[in-house]
């Protein structure tokens, strides 16, 4: 395979890793942030924590894979993204660390104060993680202020209307899938959870629809990512993806209204991956676009590792990604009925 083809394949593999991560993480953080709103009962709250605890770690590895894969396949993209968004990434890391350690350790001690602090920290970090991810992707897709001397943006500039709406969108999607997941894994608490969960999910689906509408309009201005997109101009068939996103958003409203847990989980899980795929495709071939001048952005062909490295890693991914999917799938299936 030629170097360019391998680079595109790696671009697709990384999009897949991000998609799997965001789809599955959405219900883990979703159930974390909704837990105190669904029930006040301590035992029932534990019933919400446990399924999240069982799966969160295996899911978070998809994030590490997406980031590690970027390092291996596009080192310059990895380095420049993290360097440019230094403070934001450390905030995200701290939140991810708090989430991980609190969910693992909350029930390792009987002390009620310990449990209370751990659970609260789990709830709050679960709310903030998707918010930060939304702000991150919005900034990434809009382009960083990369100039001749590297990043010229300041930390607080990452917060603007577009990025905050995107953050809210991410949180609301997680509320949809989180509610569905809480109901599906509720066991004997299922009926007690249902009413509140479906209420939250429906409201969240309206928020998602409005936020998606806003973002699509913002994307579609002359300065927006559709406006300057090379790929969307060259291949109009790609407009099918944003259309699909709108349809999924409507399906979210429909299925949360109809109180169908499985369907609102599945369609909810599709939302964030579609959004992120649109963002990456619209910026193609730039993986790290510059909002100052396109030429300062980093495109995937220039950033790609050597043909040899990409080939070795391609075969490794070809063998091991399916294996991982099989045993993680088995785990969901096996513990779904227990």
């Amino acid at each position, binding site marked *: 395979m030629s170097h360019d083809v391998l680079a595109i394949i790696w671009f697709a593999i990384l999009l897949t890793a991000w998609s799997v991560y965001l789809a599955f993480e959405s219900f883990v953080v979703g159930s974390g942030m909704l837990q105190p709103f669904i029930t006040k009962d301590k035992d029932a709250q534990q019933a919400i924590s*446990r399924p999240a*605890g*069982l*799966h*969160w*770690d*295996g899911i*978070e*590895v998809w994030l*590490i*894979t997406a*980031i*590690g*894969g*970027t*390092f*291996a*396949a*596009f*080192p*310059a993209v*990895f*380095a*420049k*993204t*993290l*360097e440019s968004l*230094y*403070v934001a*990434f*450390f905030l995200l*890391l*701290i939140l*991810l*660390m708090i989430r*991980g*350690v609190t969910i*693992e*350790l909350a*029930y*390792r*001690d009987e002390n009620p104060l310990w449990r209370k602090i751990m659970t609260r920290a789990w709830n709050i970090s679960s709310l903030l993680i998707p918010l930060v991810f939304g702000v991150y992707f919005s900034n990434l897709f809009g382009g960083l202020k990369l100039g001749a001397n*590297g990043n010229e943006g300041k*930390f607080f500039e990452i917060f603007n209307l577009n990025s905050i709406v995107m953050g809210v969108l991410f949180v609301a999607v997680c509320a949809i899938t989180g509610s569905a997941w809480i109901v599906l894994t509720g066991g004997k608490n299922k009926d007690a959870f249902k009413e509140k969960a479906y209420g939250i999910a429906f409201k969240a689906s309206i928020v998602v629809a409005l936020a998606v509408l806003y973002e699509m309009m913002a994307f579609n201005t002359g300065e927006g990512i559709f406006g300057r997109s090379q790929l969307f101009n060259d291949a109009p068939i790609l407009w099918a993806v944003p259309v699909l996103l709108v349809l999924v958003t409507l399906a979210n409203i429909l299925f949360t209204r109809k109180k169908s847990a499985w369907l609102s989980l599945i369609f909810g899980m599709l939302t964030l991956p579609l959004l992120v795929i649109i963002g990456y495709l619209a910026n193609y071939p730039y993986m790290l676009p510059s909002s100052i001048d396109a030429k300062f952005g980093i495109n995937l062909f220039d950033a790609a*590792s*050597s043909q*040899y*490295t990409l080939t*070795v*890693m391609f075969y*490794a*991914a070809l063998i*091991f*990604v399916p294996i*991982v999917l099989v*045993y*993680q799938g088995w*785990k969901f299936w096996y*513990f779904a009925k*227990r």
Partner: protein
Amino acid sequence: MIVLLSRLQFAFTVSFHFLFVPLTIGLILLTAIFQTLAVVKKDQMYRRIADFWGELFVINFAVGIVTGLIMPIQFGTNWSAYSIFMGDVFGSPLALEALLAFFLESTFAGIWIFKRHKLSDKFRMVVVWLITLGTTISAIWIITANGFMQHPVGYEMAADGSKVLLTNFAEVVANPYSLFMLAHTLLSAFLLGAFFVVCVSAFHFMKDLKAPNAERTAFFKKSMTVAVIVGLMASILIPIEGNAYAKYLGQNDVQPLKGAILRDQVDANGQMTSGEVKETSKEADIDAKSEATLKAAADNLSNLDRKPPVKFVYYSFLIMQVLGYFFLGFFLFLLLLPKLLQKNRLVQKIAIYAIPLPYIAITLGWIVAEVGRQPWLVYNLMTVEDGVSTVAESAVWFSLFTLIVFYIILFAMDLYLLMKKARKGPALEDKGGVVNES
């Protein structure tokens, strides 16, 4: 200043992370052995033994996992020049670590943490061995990455000199430096796990002296027996392997300066005092290219004003060695006179207060490995100064300060839980009480 802050942050985060890693690797192996004994001997006490040590593993694992997450990210945030220079070679082992190791250990650790009380003995045995496999594979890849930084192989420079390119993946994986390091790291982790089990057992034998309990005695006797065997095997192998490792790295085409420091043949100015040239490696067919790099490296080094802190590295190595022989003596003593740990208060006290020792030995070992190759970030290819990111100094102050505060909290949490659980011991049938309810 940026360089100093970034180094401090990396040293701090990696040392902190590595307080948890070896116990994770060591305890999960012992837990796997206990759970296997439960299946083979059909003895339910071994299931409870696996539960007790497996619970201590969980607490430790949780902190290890979250402090590990930050490590790969820091290559981008704080060492972006390094990442661009090295990404073609260095990114792959990290990505493979996630793909082959992290998925395995985290997927199955979740089952162990939240579902183990509901599973059959055989199922549990499979789960624990899969976690053990995952942690071991993880060590292989991260040490492959570190081994390249210590002794680059299987690469070539890009035509414009801007980065290194991978040319032979098998050579990177079979890098002798990495293999020596890997064996040393795994063995010391097994030793630490075994030492930990013995010392916590000593605490419970001490309790037994005050309030004898036959069940507790049996529980910790069984724990201790396995741990002493594992610990003794590790502590015999470590000096043998370590000796070969030190000989290897002192060769002229590996890290002659570090080797000379370990032999105490370097003065404070970084000049080798011994005139004798160590033999080069067995495969001494150094081609013209590597001979040229070697010469360039020697020139480079003599021009650099920063040398490794010679005495610091030497004494770290010396103390580590002394501790190594202490561990060997300790396990040998317990193999011959196990009764003393069960009955003698003084021996018990020594064991309890000795818990930090293997941690100290391991940290000193890493100081030798990492400080001993200064000023190189990638040996002979890139200095630490050249690898750092272009970020604002205030940003690094912010991250360093935040991490220190956060890690102190994490450490306190871990210590609180670990000590509470370790002291409480297993639930004894004649006393009731539940270790945990998950």
